[in-house]
């Protein structure tokens, strides 16, 4: 369990740091790095970084948006046909980031598998 928590936090923190100077795919890099350095097993390989980045992106977007009364979030939610609901947009944002991170982590895991048993 601690392993999960470590990977979760490490992915989140690394992603936050990398996002300062890399584009959006910094979350993929972060998840890849932690999947290689703090490897997990089975479904956790995907879901731990997925949840880590989901939390990072949704909390960050919530903070940015709530200070501005969600004016833009409501409009973008409408634009992407998510109703006018900013919270759904925030969730979608988290899922998009999480998905990218989770898949990158699965790729990292496969790299390890490939390397270890050669």
């Amino acid at each position, binding site marked *: 369990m601690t392993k999960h928590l470590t990977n979760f936090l490490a992915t989140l923190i690394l992603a936050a740091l990398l*996002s*300062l100077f890399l*584009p*959006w*795919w*910094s*979350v*993929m890099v972060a998840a890849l790095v932690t999947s290689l350095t703090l490897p997990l097993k089975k479904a956790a390989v995907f879901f731990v970084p997925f949840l880590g980045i989901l939390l990072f*992106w949704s909390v*960050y*977007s919530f903070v*940015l*948006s709530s*200070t*501005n*009364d*969600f*004016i*833009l*979030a409501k*409009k*973008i939610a*409408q*634009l992407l046909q998510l109703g006018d609901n900013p919270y759904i*947009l925030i969730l*979608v*944002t988290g899922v*998009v*980031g999480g*998905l*990218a991170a989770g*898949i*990158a982590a*699965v*790729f990292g*895991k*496969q*790299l390890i*598998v*490939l390397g270890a*048993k050669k």
Partner: protein
Amino acid sequence: MKYIKFLISLVLTIGIFYALNTKLGAIPPLGKFLNPSSGIWQNETDESITGEIFIPGLTEQVTVHYDELMIPHVFAQNEHDLYKAQGYLTAKHRLWQLEFQTHAAAGRLSEIFGEGTLEYDRTERRRGMGYGAEQAIVYMEQHDTETLSFVQDYADGVNAYINQLDPEDYPVEYKLLDYGPEAWSPKKTALLLMYMTKMLAGYDDDLEYTNILRLVGQENFNLLFPDFFDSTDPVIPKDTDWSFIDVPQTELPVSQMVLDTIAETIEKPHPDNGSNNWAVSGAKSVTGHPILANDPHLGLKLPAIWFVMQLSTPDHNVFGATIPGALSVISGFNQYIAWGETNATRDVIDWYKVAFNDDRTQYRYNGQWKDVRIRVEDIKIRGKESFKDSVLYTHHGPVVYDKNFKSENGRSGYAMRWVGHDGGNNQKTFIELNTAKNYEDYVNALQYWNAPAQNFVFASTEGDIALWIQGKFPNKWEGQGKFLMDGSNPENDWQSYIPQKFNAHTKNPERGFVSSANQHPVDENYPFYVFNDGYETYRNRVINTFFRSKEKFSVQDFKELHNNNYNLKAAELVPYMLEHMDTSSLSEDEKTIYGEISSWKFNNNIDEVGPSIWRQWYGKLYHMLWDEFDDEDTALTSPYTYQTIYLLKNYGDHKFMDIVETTDTIETAKDLFLLAFKEAVVRLKEIAKEDGDYAWGNYKGTYVGHLLQALPAFSRFDIPIGGDRNIVNATSKNHGPSWRMIVEMTTPPTALGIYPGGQSGNPGSRYYDNFIDDWAAGTYYNLHFLQSNEADSAVIGTQTLIPTSHD
């Protein structure tokens, strides 16, 4: 197995990266778009209006006070710094719009949208938009490097802002469409001015008229499209003495008409583009100070077309509406004068048929062959190879239509002669109006203005009021440019221009007011040929009747006139139709609606049903009447409303009244009234069923649409405002008073203003559309004219622009 797993995970990783990093159809690249560090969440923010900003190239510090409307009040020490600051601040609040409009002007939308906009881009290139902008720059380089240096200052200011941006700071539209801003340049300002020229002086029906003339003959044509209507109330009062004009109209040559058939013509500007302006003299004003008003009618867009600013140096202090991309205030006031524009709607586009040699390198002119010049338009297309379009140029101008574009004739084409290509110095007019102190300064400023021809209204604290119709006007022979002309005959060329001092104008007229509403500029007594190119005939009469109705006028009267919903057009036809229509066959439903329109007092207020019934009824009637001109294979147009109503009332038995399709009966105007009424009732019942009712507000459904084809998320719909086209409150569905200003010439002037939008271009800002509700309600904001560089209680934030030292 592990290799397969590895490969699958690799493919998935690359796949998700690609899917989230790429714009797929209309869907933005979701990873880029939604990530909170650089995506749209970074645009979820208000304007920054405090602190210090370092700007290269400034010579001295510039102070910017923001009031609660988010209007920047700019205090610079010299004009160079002022226009740098204007460029910087315009970019700061309106960057995407600023750039997008000039991309649209230049025919560069395919760079952003891909192949779908290629036809649009080609049209703009063939119209010579880029060519015209280049001519304007060449003119400034040769004749007015001072103005050009201000234009460069503005560009430097815009670029100072762009250079400060990281991708996360880009306006949200860039993120949505997945591209970024490029550097601004003086040519872009010239393109913006071309855009305005096209919008306001880019309308003509010469080719359609040519088709109609061939179809109906000269006599009928003159009946349908007269040069003057039976009554006019022109911009320059009828009793004006023109005896000071000593230059004659160009003599009528003996030339042959070209009666070609043109299948399709290029897209034209919105026919509702127009405006109102007026001013009353001190003697006609309740307070003794002249009062001036302006409301330009343009497309209702977000970000709004106008951006309001106060711009000052120690030598001048000016306030009003600016247009992103152009320098200085366009419609506004300073400490001494106020001014505003309406479109003069003069015919400054003509078409020439050009005959080429075999390889299209030369064209026939004056019995000889003349070389064509080729301008290759390189249209970049997103995700595709560029499209290269070779446009042939003659001495007339670009050959818009040829075998490569909307025409099949390999040996001929139609060349466009447009004053917009002549390279004027429009920017100087505005810069000088901004610093003008009296009538003489105003007249001096106007002389540089070529196109689009405008009715410039003027009032001063000294007590003068005036109105000049300013533009560069060809001195045409009688009838010149109404139809396609033979481009090989030199007599058909524009022979000369009306000397600027003979442009129609009026100063302190006896009647105590000046006004313009896109109507006929002058009556028949003006000694030059003025062809009716779509003059307005209703707003002007309501406005002038109002100003003749009593002795003195107040600011309150001006507000009421701006918001006046009286439908003179309906008032001139509905009673006649009600009286002459045979009502014996009306059903119960029809009788109800007949009763509703009978009791209408001709005001287009939102809660009335009369305007909707009128719109349906007249719309059906108009189409039935002009069914002759409903032909998909030929470019045609139909007569103007005024003449249509005149013919219905005076030529009710004319053969045009007959519906072509019904070969066994001959309809007259009275028959059409009834047929159209019955059709209108059917449609109104449907509308009532679909929407609950057909009250005017709902029926019209006014909206202010985002520049991206009214993208619903960034637009405002169902705005409760009355009016319509041809009404002083000219608000139709998506068109209307884009800026309303009233200035009383106290010292300093006291002004009101409002526009349907907001100062911010960011859909994430509360200042994006915050004026719209007040605008719809017909209210105004006090424009806070700061007299010195001191923040008073109305200032909510002050930002200082500081020069960076050069190393």
